[in-house]
């Protein structure tokens, strides 16, 4: 069993440092938003974890395509790791959103397209994990998983579009605004810097977690191999 690679240790330290820095920025550097007050600070991490969720599912879909092309089990492990991380971060995205929505929209939950899409996305990837659980043969598990992860990713924009055709009240902070959104605000330069730094931070959190998860997967495989050797 190999020891922890040096690069991973450095990455851990770096990620922890920027994470602390961005927490500091969110609370002490970014100015308080005039209308919403302190609760607006949730926004920085809310978008960042949402970004990691989408990034994970995107990585999983790419890994699915690569698996079907190469039949290399490494890609299956990448897809599974990415989905697990994506599920956690999408959940955090929904929770932080609720914390913000309670005072601003005056409700924990509303059937807004983004919220609906995020929830359906969670269901799709939970289904992915259940599918994997129902298959013994690792090769078939990887193959079916790859197919489903591709289907799932393709359906997400369609789900979003269909939910969006219903009226939305979710604010669009980046890009064009639409009338009727509640909780809208313009970012000051300091807010923008904090926001971009959060995105940067969480991208590294994602890379760090992926690395750890893949390493864990490799260990699990080695354990399987040793078990197999013992049983022969």
């Amino acid at each position: 069993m190999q020891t922890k690679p040096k690069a991973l240790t450095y990455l851990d330290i770096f990620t922890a440092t920027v994470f602390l820095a961005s927490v500091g920025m969110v609370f002490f550097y970014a100015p308080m938003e005039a209308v919403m007050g302190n609760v607006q600070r949730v926004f920085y991490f809310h978008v960042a974890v949402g970004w990691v969720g989408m990034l994970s599912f995107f990585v999983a879909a790419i890994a699915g395509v690569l698996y079907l092309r190469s039949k290399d089990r490494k890609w299956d492990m990448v897809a599974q790791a990415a989905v697990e991380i994506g599920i956690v971060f999408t959940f955090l995205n929904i929770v932080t959103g609720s914390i913000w929505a309670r005072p601003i929209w005056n409700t924990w939950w509303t059937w807004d397209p983004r919220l609906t899409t995020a929830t359906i996305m969670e269901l799709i990837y939970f289904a992915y994990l259940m599918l994997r659980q129902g298959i013994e043969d690792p090769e078939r598990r990887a193959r079916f998983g790859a197919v489903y992860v591709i289907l799932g990713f393709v359906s997400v924009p369609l789900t979003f579009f269909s939910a969006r055709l219903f009226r939305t009240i979710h604010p669009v902070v980046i890009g064009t605004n639409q009338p009727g959104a509640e909780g809208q605000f313009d970012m000051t330069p300091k807010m923008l810097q904090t926001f971009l730094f959060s995105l940067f931070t969480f991208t590294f959190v994602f890379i760090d977690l992926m690395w750890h998860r893949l390493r864990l997967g490799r260990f699990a495989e080695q354990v399987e191999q040793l078990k197999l050797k013992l049983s022969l």
Partner: protein
Amino acid sequence: MTFLRATLAVITKDLAGELRSRELLSAMLVFAVTVILIFNFALELDVKTRGTVTAGVLWVTFAFAGSLGLNRSMAIEKDRGCMDGLLLAPVDRSAIYFGKMIGNLLFMLLVEAIVLPLYSILYNINLFQGGFLGVVFLGSLGYVSVGTLLATMTIQTRTRDVLLPILLFPLAIPVIIAAVKASMGYLQGLEAESIRPWLNLLLVYDTVFIAIAFMVFDFVVEE
């Protein structure tokens, strides 16, 4: 040519078997009627609410009955190892997919062809409008195109029939929403302009998922 012949062979085989046993159709039908009855009491389908919820009631019914049919249709291929028999034949795998998919679509349309007039009579609503029937077709097509692919997978898993709705429903949400909204539009006599986005969504969904299923079906059946 061989592709078409194989597809046709699979469709006629499914129809012939079903005409004899009527297992799948009767199960779907009885189930569909039961669901509508439940909705009748759960939603108090009085004259006022009927207009707005009819589309939703119908599509939920079709989706549930459809997943029942998909499971059964693939179970037939698994029971005596017939899937292997199909794979042993020198035909393109996607011909098998299209054969099963079109067969499933026909079963679903057949159930709809019985449920719709029944619903019309029970609730005194005219469901026979060209636009609405077109939506029924497009919605069912999208649903079975994903459903057939997924059922081919779930039938090869340990949990089998339990897994199909769990995998299928979240993926089918866009097609169900679009079908419900478009149907509602036609039934309430809205102008074509407000229905068009939903029709476009249906068309996009159908095209995208049939294309993907066509590309990945090989991976679902071959070891």
